[in-house]
């Protein structure tokens, strides 16, 4: 029985929650507003910013100043590429660990998790040198490989926890119903696993999209994704608030929307199933 709450109490909570929610969200809202302003107006007082004219100029200039869409495309390739390769490696692994667990399965999972604990700075030197010697610096292939490895433990873990939730009785029912291993996988397991695989994919795209150590260190110009492109605004020339805002809005909007859709799975993925 849900408890009845007085309306005044609910009103107070509503006001408090909305105030805090808007405050936390405000920086994002603010750059959204600034991105539709002229550079001269964007540095004005908040009142001036709000009352000044709206324009799409900044979005055009971002592309003009440097090849924005090349970097956007790089981000897409890196996050999608690393996610798909990661899934291709992780699905069979998680699958067999969940459905045919051995004595060492638990240790194996913990060990995979431990690789995620390795600080990037700790292996920066050798990775940098390997990349330099193999000619992988500033290439998309190199970065896809690194991002795949960095996030593989999370993919395996998330998939494992999802697969684990498929009840054994369903598989037994399928076997009783005469399904061969192939039909069992095709008609029963896969359809049931797809939601889990989809949310794993979503979360991993988000993580790869926002990764900001390797993408900054191992790229220069041609393979640089948005993280690195935005970083170039740290040494600005002239007025740049509106342009930075426009570039930022475009960089975070797609991932923000994906993130909002995957909020439930986020908890599971980032806590390795420890909190659901």
């Amino acid at each position, binding site marked *: 029985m849900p408890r009845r709450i007085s309306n005044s109490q609910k009103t107070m909570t509503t006001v408090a929650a909305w105030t805090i929610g808007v405050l936390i969200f405000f920086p994002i809202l603010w750059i959204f507003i600034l991105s539709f302003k002229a550079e001269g107006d964007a540095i004005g007082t908040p009142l001036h910013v709000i009352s000044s004219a709206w324009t799409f100029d900044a979005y055009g200039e971002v592309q003009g100043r440097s090849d924005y869409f090349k970097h956007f495309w790089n981000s897409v390739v890196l996050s999608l590429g690393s996610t798909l390769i990661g899934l291709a490696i992780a699905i069979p692994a998680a699958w067999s660990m969940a459905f045919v667990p051995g004595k060492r399965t638990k240790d194996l999972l913990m060990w995979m998790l431990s690789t995620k604990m390795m600080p990037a700075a*700790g292996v920066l030197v*050798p990775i940098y040198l390997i990349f330099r010697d193999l000619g992988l610096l500033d290439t998309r292939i190199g970065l896809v490989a690194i991002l795949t490895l960095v996030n593989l433990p999370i993919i395996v873990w998330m998939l494992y926890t999802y697969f684990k939730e498929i009840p054994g009785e369903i598989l037994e029912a399928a076997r009783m119903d005469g399904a061969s291993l192939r039909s069992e996988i095709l008609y029963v397991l896969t359809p049931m696993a797809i939601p889990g695989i989809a949310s794993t994919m979503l979360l991993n795209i988000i993580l790869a999209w926002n990764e900001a150590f390797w993408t*900054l260190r191992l790229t220069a110009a041609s393979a640089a994704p948005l993280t690195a492109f935005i970083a170039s605004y740290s040494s600005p020339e002239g007025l740049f608030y509106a342009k930075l805002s426009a570039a930022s809005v475009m960089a975070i909007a797609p991932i923000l929307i994906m993130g909002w859709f995957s909020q439930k799975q986020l908890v599971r993925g980032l806590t390795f199933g*420890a909190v659901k």
Partner: protein
Amino acid sequence: MVSPAVAVLLIWMIVPLAMTIWFSFQQYNLLYPDRTGFAGIENYYYFITDFRFQPAIWNTLRLVLGVLAITTIGGILLALLLDQPFWGQGIVRLLVLAPFFVMPTVSALVWQNMFMDPVNGLFAHIAKAFGGDGYDFLGQSPLMSIIIMVAWQWLPFATLILLTALQSLDREQIEAAEMDGASVWSRFIYIILPHMTRAITVVILIQTIFILSVYAEILVTTNGGPGTASLNLPFLVYLASIVDNDVGMGAAGGVIAIILANIVAFFLMRAIGKNLEH
């Protein structure tokens, strides 16, 4: 079917790790390619006695503790608030969650320029409106500024996880405690907090792992400065190996960073491992 995953992770784990350890005992400076050979613990010695090392360690610690304090306490309070019934719960949840999806470089640059800039930042405008002066956040309190940026990004994470944990609490337990005469405060201390302990532990440990390696925020804002005021360990490793070209010393710093992270990882793994039991 596990083998491909194991193989790539094994290579990913062992090769760079072995190389880092190997380099850390070698004389290897890209500027002086002729000086090679075994260096003993020289790299470690130079890294630890470098004038930047102590500030870097302290800053790393302050950064981690500062962000943890803000996000954990803030996260608990926010989770408690968002768990109450109110109008527009779903939307507020989305608003609170949003900063987590902002890439670190965007977050750092936006805070640095649009908010903390002493002339054109929003805070400066507000200060001026009240007759004050713009405060040079990144010049005067660089580490604090970075703590704020990082905390803004991680507060949603803590809130979301703690809220999830809170929502899994059996309402009847709370009602039973109420029947037993427990006040709001006692219910929080004796029922809610113990229920959230595991989630809090996980939040703290996971954040520690990530915040120990904060890098992008420093790179695009202060570059570790002024002086060493906002330098942390990963950034010092980057400075030593990439900027100063001293591969040996950078590797030694890397080994130290790995040891530090492993101490935290040990406890995190135990917390997560317990979850596998059932």
